[in-house]
């Protein structure tokens, strides 16, 4: 396992869900979505029915990665916020704790100003949570507990083969 591995535990997951639920309500948004920088969905809250969440996650990460690349090219550390305005829906993208992407999709029942304000507050709460997760992972790694708890320690060749037989 590399040091950059992301692990999400029940306690922090619940906390994250609470924060984004509140963010969605307070900003009148249609959807709030958390993705890691590699395009893997962490949590979502809101109207997901008509939306392909996995695609959204991957494209958002691609978008942020490309924008990060642009920033470095012109000597900026990062562009911390991306905003795309549509005819009906708008999308607000920001980076939390340097590694997680927070996406808010909203229509004219909300406004950019309101979304910005609420995102700011939620961001600082989320940063706390993600810092706690990182601490926990490091702590468990150092104390060697991570290995013991890993559900994959006992994985067999049969388990792996079975994945491909259906």
């Amino acid at each position: 396992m590399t040091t950059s591995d992301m692990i999400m535990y029940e306690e922090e997951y619940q906390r994250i869900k609470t924060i984004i639920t509140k963010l969605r309500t307070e900003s009148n948004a249609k959807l709030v979505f958390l993705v890691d920088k590699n395009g893997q969905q962490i949590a979502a809250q809101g109207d997901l029915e008509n939306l392909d969440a996995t695609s959204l996650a991957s494209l958002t990460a691609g978008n942020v990665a490309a924008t990060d690349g642009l920033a470095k090219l012109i000597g900026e550390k990062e562009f911390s916020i991306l905003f795309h305005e549509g005819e009906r829906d708008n999308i607000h993208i920001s980076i939390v704790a340097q590694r997680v992407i927070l996406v808010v999709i909203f229509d004219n029942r909300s406004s950019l100003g309101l979304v910005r304000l609420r995102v700011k507050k939620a961001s600082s709460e989320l940063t706390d949570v993600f810092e706690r997760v990182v601490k926990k992972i490091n702590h468990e790694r150092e104390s060697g507990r991570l290995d013991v708890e890993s559900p994959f320690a006992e994985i067999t060749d049969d388990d792996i083969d079975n994945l491909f037989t259906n």
Partner: protein
Amino acid sequence: MTFINYASREINCKIVYYGPGLGGKTTNLQYVYDKTAPSAKGKMISLATETDRTLFFDFLPLELGSVRGFKTRFHLYTVPGQVFYDASRKLILKGVDGIIFVADSQVERMDANIESVSNLEQNLKLQGYDLMKIPYTLQLNKRDLPNVASVDDMKRELMRKGEPVLEAVASTGIGVFDTLKAVAKQVLIELKKG
């Protein structure tokens, strides 16, 4: 970067298809997509030029089933192989768990293969990875064409370690799943090591 979610009992791994332009990376992904049951796959996204060359990436999420009660997902990505898209290739490699190198077996593409393996090594290093340590599989694609280099020659030029080498014809699907399986197996074995 494997993402293990203990809360939702999911594990996500990222696999990247690398290799020279027109080698058949997108064709590999398309075949996997076509042959996978709808319940086990998401939408395939292709960010491509008007002439169907990969511009940024192709993406296909696969859900292969459960290991030890954890839903196991593989996110498959291809890079754009054309030399001048190097900046995009670097981005796609971020967080990679396993790599499939799709080599073009045609004799006249040998230099492009060699160039691309070395480009992969460099780009991995920039992201802090080591090709020698990461799960890796070499696919010799387009074995159906008349002007192909011998398997031995290709192995000699392109192999970097004791990686699995598989012959393939991605356009008809030969070797496509075997290649994916070869690398997925290594990724899961890495997880086992913890």
